């Protein structure tokens, strides 16, 4: 289902120089198989908390897809980011109007997430909103002291965004205002 990335060196350079924290965006990363048909077999449920509202597959429903994703991309992402990668998880997400994921870092002690990713899929109704927004943060005394919006990544079809997970990797998915935002997303683990 997955194909390797091309031109690792420029992606590694992009990772090193990215602001406000390390990330890389790969466009036209089309799957090697019929991914959309494969995903048709999986239903989504609504999830909601104080931090988010969206629809997603069950946490382990896409484990076989995630394993292939990690096997194909893990070694290359290790070259790009300098991080050891052995596995990944994956869920499919559907953001409809009014859905959002508020600012958070993904960093939690004990979870060992080293990279986060979002892979945007084609949709019958391209979304308005739903951008991935990255923040520039400063830390004082172990907590975030200043936070400023710094970079926006549009959810373009077949775009793969990979970003660092750390105490300052604050990001959000802006509220979808119209249309449908489809993606696969998750984390890579050492």
């Amino acid at each position, binding site marked *: 289902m997955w194909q390797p990335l091309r031109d690792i060196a420029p992606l590694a350079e992009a990772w090193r120089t990215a602001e406000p924290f390390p990330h890389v965006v790969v466009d036209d990363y089309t799957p090697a198989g019929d991914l959309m048909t494969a995903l048709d077999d999986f239903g989504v449920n609504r999830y909601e908390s*104080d*931090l988010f509202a969206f629809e997603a597959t069950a946490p382990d429903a896409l484990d076989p897809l995630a394993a292939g994703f990690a096997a194909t991309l893990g070694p290359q992402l290790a070259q790009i980011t300098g991080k050891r990668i052995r596995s990944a998880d994956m869920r499919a997400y559907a953001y409809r109007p009014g859905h959002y994921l*508020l600012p958070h*870092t993904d960093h939690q002690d004990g979870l060992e997430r080293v990279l986060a990713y979002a892979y945007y899929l084609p949709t019958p109704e391209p979304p308005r909103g739903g951008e991935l927004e990255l923040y520039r943060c400063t830390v004082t005394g172990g907590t*975030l002291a200043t936070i400023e919006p710094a970079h926006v990544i549009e959810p373009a079809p077949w775009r793969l965004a990979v970003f660092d997970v750390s105490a300052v990797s604050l990001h959000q998915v802006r*509220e979808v205002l119209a249309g449908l935002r489809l993606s696969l997303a998750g984390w890579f683990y050492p």
Partner: protein
Amino acid sequence: MSLDELLATRSAIIVKTDVRAAFTGFARYRLYDRGSYEWLDVPADDRLGTIVEAFCGERKRCVASRVLRLVPGDYVLARHDPVRERGTIEVVVDLSPAPVEGAEVQYRQHGQVFFRMPCEPGTAAVVPCGPTVTANHSYVSKLRTGGEVVRWIAVFA
């Protein structure tokens, strides 16, 4: 958590109120990993104390009084909530200009929502609180143009 504490929190209510007030001079909070909103500390007010007295049958002392204003795109996460003392009573008076669909104060115990206060001007929530209770103000959708949420929150001990 004791059974008494569990039962106390489950007695939270929403009442009608004629408390009205207008405030200016808000400051904006921008630590987005916790919240995005405007706030203003205001003096204690006897009218809110009367609401508490009607609920619990005794006069209590106001220990905190703050007004929050949220516009589309704003929110307050539960992780931003201060730790509450055992046996305190929280009053939330809705001063919003108009109802805003989906905008709620959500009170949680161990993460689970046990009480919701929708945005309904002219109402007040009275919520017994303790160390296991947190609250969040849900995200105000940008789909509701002009939605403005104003809540006067006072804590009594």
